[in-house]
């Protein structure tokens, strides 16, 4: 199954790509992308299913920390490369189309 690069998926990938080795948890991602958590979660699951993202539960004692454990996400090595390529590919048609439009407008 191929991953559909919707705007929301692109936002999540961009947030993760800002620092590919950094782990981010759901709330962090939601705040950074501006997406609601209910929107970000299925995207992260899909990315994980595709092998682009790996996740793990935080290893803490919830009683000591007084909060439940977070689930951290980070790009895999292959995922970072694939995400960069996919985002570059997602942007290309837009700029090409704009370029053509500008050229067409100039010659008309």
């Amino acid at each position, binding site marked *: 199954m191929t991953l559909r690069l919707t705007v929301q998926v692109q936002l999540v990938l961009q947030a993760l790509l800002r620092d590919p080795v950094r782990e981010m948890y759901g709330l962090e991602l*939601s705040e950074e992308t501006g997406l*609601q*958590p*209910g929107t970000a*979660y299925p995207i992260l699951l899909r990315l994980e299913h595709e092998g682009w993202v790996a996740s793990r539960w935080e290893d803490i004692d919830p009683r000591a920390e007084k*909060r439940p454990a977070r689930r951290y996400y980070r790009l895999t090595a292959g995922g970072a490369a694939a995400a960069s390529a996919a985002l570059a590919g997602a942007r290309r048609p837009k700029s090409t189309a704009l370029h053509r439009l500008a050229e067409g407008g100039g010659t008309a």
Partner: protein
Amino acid sequence: MMPAIDPREERRKKRGRAAALIGTGTILVSSVFQPGWWILGTNPRNWVLLAAGTVVGTAVAASGGRPPRGRGRGSGRVRGRGSGPAGHGRDDNDGAVGAAAHRWRLLAMVSRLMPRSAGRRWLAEAESLLSEIAPVRRAAAIRSYLLSAPLLAATMWAREVLRRARLGPRRPG
């Protein structure tokens, strides 16, 4: 001076909005999955989708109209699994907290629509996030979880069915 707000009127409006939203969402999601959605046939995906849509629709619509329960920690606590938002980051507004706790119970209910492990993970992650989110954003976050749940449940079940199909039939003994 601000005009007085009639809580009953507010509730009715909220319920109407939720019902309309869920109805439209269910139709749209069903159409995406199966153009002839009204013919349920024998495809289990259709039945899962219909069940998920119905339960979540009812849950969200009901959450709009139900008055917040009681006050403080004791009455708003979620029984059973975990503590939910009841024990974390509470604000001083009893109504908002009661409503949030009530919605969290809905999340727990909705999680049971998904395959067991996926539902547990979804709920645990929702609980983790909701415990840290700002109280003013909590209700919107819960709503977003509830609204995305039917499609997520359908996807999870589709994956589960595929996984089981790949494993093949169970052998006796």
